């Protein structure tokens, strides 16, 4: 159950990341978009700093909430990666 929930949360995170990266491509150009795709943390920071200007506040709030849920679920069930330990960070 937790595993399925975890997978849904992570897929949600990927969707939010892609939506922010699309905004980065449109607003800052291809290089920033590629950097956002490579480094999710950069996309997250850029997203929050420009949330109001590019109109992605809701996406950023959902993304932040999903990350929070994933951290809580990680502590509760130690789910996360298929066949991997939950401590993996980039």
């Amino acid at each position: 159950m937790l595993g399925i929930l975890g997978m849904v949360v992570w897929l949600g995170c990927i969707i939010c990341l892609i939506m922010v990266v699309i905004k980065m491509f449109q607003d800052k150009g291809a290089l920033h978009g590629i950097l956002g795709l490579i480094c999710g943390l950069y996309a997250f920071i850029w997203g929050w700093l420009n949330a109001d200007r590019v109109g992605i506040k809701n996406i950023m709030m959902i993304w932040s909430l999903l990350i929070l849920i994933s951290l809580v679920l990680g502590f509760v069930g130690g789910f996360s990666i298929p066949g991997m330990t939950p401590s993996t960070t980039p």
Partner: protein
Amino acid sequence: MSRTILFPPLFATILRDRKLGSFICGAALLQLLLTLFGLPGWPCPLIHALGIPCPGCGLSRATVFLFQGHVKEAVTLHAFAPVLVLALGIITVCTLAPRQRIERLVTGTETLERYTGLTIILLSGLILYWLARLMILQAAFVRLIQS
């Protein structure tokens, strides 16, 4: 077609934006400290959802290894760790130093980017490096990230 159109600057625009720079420095410092103490840091959605490491997977730990002086382990884990350390160092300097003092550094970086396409080369290199590890050394790559 002019070179200006061919190679748009990326790093220089980050250096010019002090607010973005300060957030990047803060987030990077927090991430490195969490990694150093073995605590969960910024989670990679790609590896968690699909089990595939992203191009940046392993960079935090490689950077921590580099700061600890374990160069071989750092480069084995992620070859771009020295590039990240250098980039973070420049961003930190440009965020903290007075604007007049860093103007030459930022302008120089922009010129270098525009005329050499260094950022594009590095980003392409990172993607090629990731693809090579993913396709040729997939099992070893995943094991390395798991470790």
